[in-house]
């Protein structure tokens, strides 16, 4: 089923083929998890949000129409759920998890210990700097740099104009650059 396009899989899933839906999950679980993790900063929370994203897509399969890319709708839901999470966390006075606790991908742990430690340090510094960006800047940065979306796709996911994506992304990079410098990450 790996060669089948997303909307065909959606059509099969609508007809009750759960294998087709499982293929969609397999196809997008890593990028969705990547987006959620970088948005909320905690691996556990990101996993819950990613799971919720797929379940909601399933619940609303009959309402999805192939006017846009399936991934745009998927990331749109993930984005709304991460914003809900961040809003609720703010309301409860709970900050996002320290990125040191995120248990992110650390590369091959069998590498020399000093190299693994160095990778962990770089990743933690980057994560800390990204977490200091506002959600609206963080989301465009993550969608562009880590999910590889073009401006048109990002605009659809975050529901703004392409020109707004362009300016938010430039601002996000500017702020990230400053944050990394403040965290000593310019020496990374």
């Amino acid at each position, binding site marked *: 089923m790996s060669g089948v396009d997303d909307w065909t899989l959606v059509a099969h899933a609508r007809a009750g083929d759960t294998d087709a839906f499982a293929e969609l*999950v397999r196809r997008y*679980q890593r990028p969705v998890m990547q987006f959620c993790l970088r948005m909320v900063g905690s691996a556990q929370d*990101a996993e819950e949000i990613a*799971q919720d994203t797929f379940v909601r897509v399933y*619940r609303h399969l009959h*309402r999805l129409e192939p006017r846009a890319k399936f991934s745009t709708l998927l990331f*749109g839901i993930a984005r709304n759920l991460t914003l809900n999470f961040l809003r609720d966390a703010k309301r409860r006075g709970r900050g996002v998890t320290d990125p040191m606790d995120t248990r992110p991908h650390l590369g091959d742990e069998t590498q020399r210990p000093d190299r693994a430690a160095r990778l962990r340090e770089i990743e933690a510094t980057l994560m800390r700097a990204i977490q200091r960006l506002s959600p609206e800047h963080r989301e465009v940065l993550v969608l562009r740099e880590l999910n590889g979306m073009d401006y048109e796709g990002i605009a659809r996911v975050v529901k*703004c104009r392409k020109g707004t994506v362009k300016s938010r*992304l*430039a601002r996000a990079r500017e702020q990230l650059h400053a944050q990394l410098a403040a965290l000593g990450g310019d020496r990374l």
Partner: protein
Amino acid sequence: MNDKDVWEELSAYLDGEAADPEKIARLLEAHPEYARRFDELRRLSQQVKTLAPPDVHPAFLTRVMAEVAETRPVQPSWFARFRAPLAAAGAAALVVLVGAAVLRAVFAPEVPVEIAANGRAATAEEALLEALEARAAAGEDIEAWAEDSLFDFDDAADVSADDLITGLAAEDWFDKLVLAWEADEDLDTMIGALNDYERATFNELLQEYGEEGMTI
């Protein structure tokens, strides 16, 4: 170009999204300062890209599929109610029924009194559109209605059906609403159970449908 514009154009150039890439290339050749900043941007981008996607445990798929197995998909009839033209006879009865209940229970504070009272609006959609027109004519900032909501639209015209689908799908209460509707629960009772925030969000969503010319 001012400093901000330069950074913005360099950032777009890096992404292959510059409006005039040849012009930026010429700027980079002619101005070492721009070339230095572009190099900074490129290094920054490369650094961020080192954040590899997290490893996904095989149990993740199992958990999703287990939850899916217990999940009842929302049937198209519900969404068709939002999308089908009110003129469609079958949908119209349902739409008017629900629209009227929604207007009564949710929109009471939002639909201008004169419209609700004068009886010109025969349907929820008409009432909404009239409310929008009245507010626009009064010079009100329609975008401000979405303030503090999940939907940070830069332009009301950008709102599309897909936006609404992704927005609605992220709302727990909307799922509850759908399930209650499907279970033939009393809609008034159910809408009455929504808290202020949920009502306000529902309100915004329906207003946005109205702006898009969608039917309710």
